[in-house]
């Protein structure tokens, strides 16, 4: 047969050759129909059996994978979940931190000091805090986080707390500051010597080996010595005329009470990690309210008209830190037609 592979098709004479060749050889052999039927039937049965076995293999593989996934989940649960009975959801948002702060999920209750801190993470990587989490600040460190009800919690240096749930903090050692502006909600601060419950207030709790100290800056708290059980002893700590109770309770539950001004310098440690006040679209009145809460001072307007003006004037932008209130506030007032006088216990606006 003459061939020309480069051509797309064969010539007419070549086609004739091809036709003659195929006619000479005839159709290809095939099994007889009845034989073919038997072969097909046997092949089909073997195929169906193979399909069944394949599905069995798949199921077995899936079972193994599911088992492996279960094991991994169980391992993950043991490693990362908090102790049973504690919630795993996020309960607080970190607002600011200074120095070295360590976080971990407690694995036992009470946690063993030797194994308590298995995970150290920089504070900037921890925007959220979960229930059951233990937080510890090192020397010269501080941390402020916000609970779901907008209560701000600030941890002083060398402090260790556990977030039991969204409204329950266990202070193991150190000092915390609670700023709870919402009078409709309350949180419980648990300490080895007693629980402190507030309804919208500002106070600090100091836990040391020998005593518990609760210092009031605003509002009222109740202190339940020995916990909130039926046999506990309840105390009320309050603030009157800018002077807050400072209750010191020793191991024998003996209570010593003194006074601390709401605007005293002793509160300034709380400024370290307080979030800045954002001025954009904020009114002078709102700025003063924040400054008063940060400093423990009152805001006194010379007249309702002055107060109205303070509510109308708004800033374009910028921010102010709690630690710079005394220096920055006069500069801000220079941009308004209001006058500011900062006194020891109040801001006077004229």
């Amino acid at each position, binding site marked *: 047969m003459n061939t020309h592979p480069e051509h797309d098709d*064969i010539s007419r004479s070549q086609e004739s050759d091809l036709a003659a060749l195929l006619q000479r*050889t005839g159709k290809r052999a095939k099994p007889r129909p009845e034989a073919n039927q038997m072969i097909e039937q046997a092949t089909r049965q073997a195929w169906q059996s*193979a399909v069944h076995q394949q599905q069995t293999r798949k199921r077995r593989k899936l079972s193994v994978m599911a088992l492996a996934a279960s094991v991994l989940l169980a391992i993950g649960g043991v490693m990362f979940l908090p102790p049973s009975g504690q919630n795993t959801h996020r309960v607080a948002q970190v607002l600011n931190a200074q120095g070295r702060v360590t976080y971990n999920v407690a694995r036992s209750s009470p946690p063993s000091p030797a194994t308590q801190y298995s995970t150290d993470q920089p504070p900037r990587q921890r925007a959220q805090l979960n229930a059951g989490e233990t937080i510890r600040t090192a020397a010269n460190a501080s941390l402020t986080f916000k609970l779901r009800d907008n209560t701000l919690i600030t941890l002083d240096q060398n402090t260790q707390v556990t977030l039991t749930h969204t409204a329950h903090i266990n202070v193991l050692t150190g000092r915390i500051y609670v700023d709870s502006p919402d009078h409709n909600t309350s949180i419980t601060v648990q300490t080895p010597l007693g629980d402190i419950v507030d309804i919208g207030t500002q106070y600090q709790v100091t836990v040391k080996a020998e005593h518990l100290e609760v210092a009031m800056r605003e509002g009222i708290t109740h202190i339940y010595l020995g916990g909130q059980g039926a046999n506990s002893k309840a105390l009320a700590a309050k603030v009157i005329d800018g002077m807050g109770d400072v209750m010191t309770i020793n191991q024998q539950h003996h209570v010593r009470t003194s006074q601390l001004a709401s605007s005293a310098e002793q509160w300034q440690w709380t400024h370290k990690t307080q979030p800045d006040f954002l001025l954009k679209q904020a009114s002078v009145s709102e700025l003063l309210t924040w400054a008063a809460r940060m400093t423990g001072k009152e805001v006194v307007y010379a007249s309702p008209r002055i107060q109205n003006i303070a509510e109308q004037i708004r800033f374009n932008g910028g921010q102010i830190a709690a630690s710079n209130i005394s220096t920055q506030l006069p500069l801000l007032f220079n941009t308004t037609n209001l006058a500011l006088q900062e006194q020891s216990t109040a801001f006077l606006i004229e």
Partner: protein
Amino acid sequence: MSLKKLLFNRSLNVPHQADLALIKALLNGDEASFTRFYNTYSDKVYRFCRGRISDEANCQDIVQQSMTKAMRYLHTYRGEASLLTWLFQIARNETASWYRQYGKNDALTATFDDNPHLLATLESLPSALDGSTQDVSDDLKLLVSTTLDALPTIYGNVLEMKYIEGLSVQEIAHTMGTGETAVQSQLARARKAFKRLFQELQQEWSTQ
């Protein structure tokens, strides 16, 4: 290009995706895929065995054994060779096994096993093409049959319908359920493919 590549491994650089897809569908229990598989390959396996086994009944047994064994080992097919090559390998093994079982020594098969290239070449051809037969027309018939089997199934079918059965393009189109233009196009490609492959097979055979 070697005959092995020419016949069964035209796309050695890539896996036999279409064959793999067919096997996957088979393993998923797809009935249409089984029909397509059986109609495409059963006759080719039969002819492969028929050239080696003179007895019709024995040939049918071996074909049945080969096809059922292929079904049992479907999950082992990896697409490294064409599905046709894979099936022929199974059929060859079954044929050799049949000879061993019934005490017939197949010298041809033993010779093939000693030479992989020769094995690859002659495995595709019925044993009668080794020249043992004096009937040249039978040799030619087997060579044509092997060429047609090595072509894509539809090419072999349209060539048979056109030149052996004498159907017109219109009748082929009606039989295949397609258009006349498509049939003409397939015929053109089939003729070209047949011519090239047949020539290669002739040359390969004449040099052995």
